[in-house]
């Protein structure tokens, strides 16, 4: 693994070049570890906004942090070039999803942070930070503390703090996802305006997002990541002229197309394999509430032909792709639904479930959980076999940890406990962390 910082001779060269990047979390001592990024290439040219789009766990944030120098990847190379120009722009600066403002520093002191680290004298610091605050529209709030500001204003401070060090590349890690819809839209528009008018001292923006519309709205080029492990599965050029309109049919078509790509399975694999990392007992399950699953089935059942376009569903339910896909995939796993192309369609069992009453629903759910979720069947079998009909949960947790990391094992256990309780196939006692067959009813 090499990270180099060099000054190229000509201007046309890319600002960032990432080659064969691979990153593995954990592992060592005979265990394989979790591959979050595998074989990733990326080129960032001057004058473009590039989006990294993917679900959580696709390693896009890891890639961004590798470029920022915050993480040393396991293998591969990251080259960040400082292109000499008229202005002083060099290096990278990052805007964080959670803003990462220092709560004990005023807006101005927060903005000055990077300058102070560079050893810029106090007067110059003041001048430059005030200019940045002015540019970003926070005039008058110089002496406010972050806690006094709304989320949108805080992210403006985060942006000013990044811009004031005059980076050549602006790295943005889901910068708008912690904001409400209206605020996020205003901030996006303001940022695009500043960019198109060339008022920011930067040459290029790298934006991490899981919001497809946001990527299409802002980026010149989108790299779509698969998850588990994170790989670039598509590179999409967005040629729509700015400012882009969400209701423009071309815009919609592009969003739908990306949706389809993100839900598509690797060619050849049966639709149900590889939904979740791991197989059989070692399958890492997402913790989705049974209420959410039921709600989704009802919604799809209500649509004509009991089928729905995923992107339309996401809009209607106000769900990010990140939230919608695990629900759809859990339904697929339990054979309540199928994803075909851009659509999600209920199976006959799914339709029956949607029409059933409370008790029937539980029965249908129980049959499907036992039949299609190997871990649930395994727990039930162990409980049936034991004379006491009890088993400590730690036993299953340990089994899971042979296959996956502790975090994943924890979430899988949470999922199985919720589903098992709802289906009444077993009970779980939080006090002493054990499963049993007794039914409190």
């Amino acid at each position: 693994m090499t990270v180099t910082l060099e000054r190229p001779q000509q201007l046309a060269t890319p600002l960032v070049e990432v080659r064969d990047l691979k990153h593995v979390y954990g592992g060592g001592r005979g265990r394989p570890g979790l591959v979050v990024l595998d074989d990733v290439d990326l080129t960032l040219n001057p004058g473009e906004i590039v989006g990294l789009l993917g679900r959580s766990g696709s390693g896009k944030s890891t890639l961004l942090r590798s470029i920022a120098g915050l993480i040393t990847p396991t293998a591969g190379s990251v080259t960040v070039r400082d292109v000499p120009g008229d202005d002083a722009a060099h290096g990278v600066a990052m805007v964080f999803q959670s803003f990462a403002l220092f709560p004990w520093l005023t807006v101005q002191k927060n903005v000055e942070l990077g300058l102070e680290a560079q050893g810029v004298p106090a007067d110059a610091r003041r001048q430059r930070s005030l200019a940045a605050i002015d540019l970003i529209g926070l005039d008058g709030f110089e002496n406010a503390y972050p806690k006094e500001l709304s989320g949108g204003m805080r992210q403006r401070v985060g942006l000013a703090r990044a811009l004031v060090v005059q980076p050549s590349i602006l790295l943005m890690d889901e910068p708008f996802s912690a904001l409400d819809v209206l605020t996020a839209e205003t901030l996006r528009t303001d940022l695009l305006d500043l960019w198109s008018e060339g008022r920011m001292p930067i040459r290029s923006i790298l934006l991490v997002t899981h919001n497809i519309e946001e990527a299409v709205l802002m980026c010149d080029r989108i790299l779509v990541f698969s998850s588990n492990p994170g790989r670039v599965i598509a590179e999409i050029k967005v040629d729509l002229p700015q400012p882009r309109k969400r209701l423009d049919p071309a815009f919609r078509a592009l969003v739908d197309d990306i949706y389809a790509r993100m839900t598509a399975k690797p060619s050849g694999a049966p639709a149900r394999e590889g939904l979740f990392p791991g197989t059989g007992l070692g399958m890492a399950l997402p913790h989705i509430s049974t209420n959410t699953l039921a709600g989704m089935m009802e919604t799809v059942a209500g649509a004509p032909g009991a089928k729905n376009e995923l992107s339309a569903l996401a809009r209607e339910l106000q769900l990010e792709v990140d939230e919608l896909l695990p629900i759809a995939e859990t339904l697929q796993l339990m054979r309540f639904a199928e994803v075909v192309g851009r659509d999600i369609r209920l199976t006959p069992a799914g339709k029956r479930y949607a029409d059933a009453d409370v008790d029937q629903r539980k029965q249908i759910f129980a049959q499907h959980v036992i039949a299609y979720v190997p871990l649930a069947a395994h727990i039930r079998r162990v409980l049936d076999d034991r004379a006491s009909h009890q088993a400590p949960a730690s036993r299953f947790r340990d089994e899971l940890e042979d296959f996956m990391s502790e975090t994943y094992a924890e979430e899988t256990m949470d999922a199985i406990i919720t589903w098992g309780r709802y289906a009444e196939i077993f009970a779980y006692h939080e006090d002493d962390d054990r499963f049993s067959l007794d039914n409190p009813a």
Partner: protein
Amino acid sequence: MVFLSSDRQGAGLLARFPRRDLAPNRYDVFALVLIGAFAVLVVHGARQMNLPVSHLVTEPVVLDPRRLPEYALRSTLRMFAAISLSLLFTFGVATLAAKSRKAELVIIPMLDIAQSIPIMSFLAFTLTFFVGLFPASELGVEAAAIFLIFTSQAWNMAFSFYQSLRTIPTDLDEAARQFGLSPWKRFLKLELPFATPALVWNAMMSMSGGWFFVVASEAFSVGKTSYTLPGIGSWLSVAIDHRDLTAVAWAVGAMAVVILLYDQLVFRPIVAWADKFRFEQTASEIEPESWFLDLMRRTHLLARIAGPVGELLGRLPAPVRAPRRKARSLSPSAALWFDRAWYGVIGGAAVWAVVTIVRYLTRSLDMHDALVAFGDGFLTLGRVLVLIVIASLIWVPIGVWIGLRPAWSQRIQALAQFLAAFPANVIFPFAVMAIVALRLDPDIWLSPLIILGTQWYILFNVVAGASALPNDLKEAAGMFHLRSWQRWRDFILPGIMPYYITGALTASGGSWNASVVAEVVTWGHRTLEARGLGAFIAKATAAGDIPRVALGATVMSLFVITLNRSLWRPLYAYAEKNFRLN
């Protein structure tokens, strides 16, 4: 006194044990024996020097009220010297533990044990050591007193700082690294501010507990050698010798004034100031206020000084851009080998420590002494537990009653904190007089003294817990007309449980310390004694019988640590898990 508090919220004052994965285990034993062996060696070394340390009485204390302000000042200065020392210790040791895994393996169990050890039992060692360091000078005694106060304060502060450093939010850490803050700037801009609220609270708790040790450390005898340092504590001991009740009253008054001033001029301003470092993105509902801080903030002079000083601090080391570099890492096999070597060193040190202690103790003591010490230990244990139960029966209902009435709770809270800071040993003489006058049995009636100063921790934690009960739950309890017992069982008791446990364990830790001064008390020539481990240590200290002091101190440490591990810690973990209202 034992405080484990590291809570960010002022009102809660909740103690927090080291997180589970850091909870010491076999390293406890190692840390304990190492500290014990060190103490033994210290005394041994001091004895070898064969110093004529008898009658190092410096300037005698005069019972003249006009001199009292000066004495009070000397006591206060001692306190501040100790707290400064504790801060230095905290920054050094806690930072080391947070940054180095190898150091952490040793430091954290050491801190955990050190904060459980009843410091009063080690007084003889401390004195002997420092007087040996500075023979025949007042400085040695002064250093010993300050060191004693330091040992009552430093551990929980270091713990809190360490925990803060370990829990720095990832995004701020990344922002600091991304903008290339140098290690020093990182400390000033990120680590120190983030740790400040918890550190301030722990320092305040430490100082509250510290007054007890200030008083106890100023006049002391080990065998034929007695030491006095001018201060409120030595004034009190002279007053007791002279059976001068008026002088005792003066001491109580002076102590009250000192604590009030310290509260108004130090405590409150710092708490109010530290509020801005609370790591919350929303403004707090009730902001701590301080008239003194407001006053200081209004002074232009101060701002003029503070600005350039801050700038200067920031510049101290030349600004360095954090270089992009590969993380240093050993190959897995080398790392494993290094770990093994490190464990080997730790294990060797532990064995050596055990051998040292056993050899020292067996030279002059036999099994019988050990049995006596353990027997006395059980007596004191019984005393502590019974008194905690009695104090709880009294203060929990009162605390809940107060806590549910916001108008009262603010004022009572301040009063209880004041009482907790007030060194109970100053009012012991009144109790002794009462026992003598009424011809009561000292075995029973001396007992309440050990909880006299520490019961307030139960009160103010319960008040804090009750006033933190959420309003919606109160309304729900009211709407369903919960009967009184059901209301207590299902709502109030679970709701205040984490707070109560904190108060009770703090009171328990403090009581062991108090037993060393409370189980043997004097008034003039009258000496009252209650049988127990505290009396065992106090008598051995007075007789200069160092091996027995060592035995007593070791046994007491074992009792306290066992009690913490087998009762308080599980209770605390249980309450945290099941009754935390968030």
